[in-house]
């Protein structure tokens, strides 16, 4: 699975960014756990984003309300 993911990542066009590179590294690590490992990685990432967004939203609302 790791080889497949590495091949797929090599196919990605365009310039890379630090965030993209971080994700690529994580993807390669997660591929050791098979497709389910990759799915779990994105699930965990999405939950982190959601928590971050909720926290920021709360802080912004406090700022807005003064």
């Amino acid at each position: 699975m790791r080889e497949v993911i590495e091949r797929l990542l090599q196919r990605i066009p365009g310039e890379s960014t630090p965030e993209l590179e971080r994700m690529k590294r994580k993807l390669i690590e997660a591929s050791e756990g098979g497709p389910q490992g990759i799915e779990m990685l994105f699930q965990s990432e999405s939950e982190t984003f959601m928590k971050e967004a909720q926290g920021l939203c709360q802080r912004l609302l406090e700022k807005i309300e003064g």
Partner: protein
Amino acid sequence: MSYRIERIEVEGFRGFRKRKELKLGENLVIVSGPQRSGKSSLLNAPVWALVGSEAEKKELGPVPIRERVRWIARNLETDSTRVKILFRGSQGEELVVGRSDPKGKVTVERDGREIKKGPLEVLGLTLDGLVSSVFLPQEVIRAALSLEPKKRQAIFIQLAGLENLSTLEGCLENARKILEDKEKKIAELRKHVDGRIGGQVSLQKRRVKELWDKVLGLGLSEEVLSPDGARPLVEQSLKGLADFCSKYGEKMPSIPEVRGPEDLPQFVNEMRGILFRLEAESPETRRQRDLYDRKRKIEALISDLEELEEKKQKINASKEEILKPHGKEEELKIAIQELEKTLEGLDREIERGGKYLKMVEEALSYFETVPQGLAQMECPVCRKAKVSVAHVREHLASEIEKAGLEPLRNQRQEIEKTLKGKKAAQEALIHLAEQEKKLEAMSKELLEKASELRGREIAPNESLGLVLKNMAQATEKGLEELKGILEARGRAIQGVRAQLEKLGLVVELHREKKRLAELDEIPQTPQYKAFIETEDKIHMQIALLKELLKGLEQEKMEAFRQRFADLKEEVNDLYRRLLGREDFSEVWIDEKDWEVKTRAGDRQPTVIQVFNVGDMTAVALALFLASAMRANHQAGFVLLDDPIQSLDEEHERRLAEILADLAQKRQVIVSCSRSSFVEALEDAGTVKRQVIRLAPWDESRTCRLQGEERED
């Protein structure tokens, strides 16, 4: 090295409730029997021993067997399941794989010794290899006949041994959906934040405008918001305060210096505090407070005095009322003493009369016993000598009548009643005297308080009521005089305050404008930027997933093309053989809609789309069998569960020939319920074969061989 299946042991597995052991000696094993006789159970036993009910990552690698998800291995009437498969290697080695549930224990033994490797690993198999070249379940062929391109694609990819890529695609799709769901939710959060910013900004703009209107309404110009624009207002406020202090003899308080607009809020707050103190803490206000306090106390004393007087009046009236029937208090006392003496005399008389009466009654009772004729005696009443008994009796009876005490007792009762009335009046007077005493004490206390409030003792000849009235009038006058002074002072403070409040309005305007600027700047804050960054990250990951899916699709297609190209010769050959059409020069799968196409015709070859279900079955079989022929793993057996599906007898015969050929290289275990196919398999080729005939399902509720006796 290649392994073939030599023995299958099952117990509590699918249709086999009871233990069953089957020896598979030949290269072509035909499992025949009617529906529900246990053919599929038998063919699934080696697969279950190798992979279990569901593929688990840690044992099998990433690919689940799609057809076996939620597949129940256990016989529904047993608590445990056990399957043991004996594989025999080409060099005579023995490999035993056992699996049991519910503990899910798997054992692998080579030549009687347990080894640590997994069963698939020992056979050099991957799950992809298993589903594309070892085990062909009924469901796979049926899926190839599906009208839905997606389902056909999935099954052709599986048959090409690329199931792992399909699984990866599924997981990436799931991940994309999860991220898109969160992306939507995060976008909603930002929309909410943006909405709140917008709402708050417009509210704030309205506030600022209202304040501007007020500021301009006070005759101030926009200049007041410039760095030094408010200085004249500061100076006016300070001057107003200084004038006030000078006029009223107050010390000018120290106020923090205003160096710029940032010092204005503190200046206004300090000034407000000072003005409040000047208003509330002046000697006049303190004097006013004292006078109000004095007024309240005097009013309380007047009220107490009035209450006291009222009570005194009530007591006097009561006294008068009590003494009315008895004269003066002294007369009442004397009358009581006299009545008591009279009562004592009466009591003595009644006592004396009572003794005499008793004596006469005793005498009469004696003479009533004396006979009439013996009357030679003196009469005890009249002292006459020699009287008759009758005379004595008559005189004694008359004496008893005369000595009657009733009138005396009646008189005594009357006197006692009068005495009781007078004593009650006396007691009431005593009670009133006690009350008077208390009132006297209260009056004294009142006098003391009033003296204290006046600051000088009230002389006995002075009227307390009058003194209090004079004090109240004096206090009222004092308050009246202070009112004018305080109003003038209040007006002066109000003047300073009015100046200050202009500045207060400017401060408020400053503050609200600053708040508006803060709100406008929220999108530039690190939190908002972090929010955008989070959104960007999720967009990036979705884009990454889309790219991966796109790449995977290409990868899958390339791999499929490569695989099909590798197997092309075998597939074409098998397809032609299965259909008996030499003119079908080529068969391929069009990746656009995953339709099967063939080129037919000897003279002018034409591309034909394959719709016929028999032909589609032939394509699926050709692909699987080509993979099986090419496979280089160590599983030297092929399991085909009812592969004929919709093939007619002629096609069955051709398939039987192909399988007999394959059995030269690999052990072929094939199940079928149709007798024509069984016969075709029995007749095909020269390879040695074995037929396992299963009995129809009956009340014994366990699969068994035909002719085998029922145990129960």
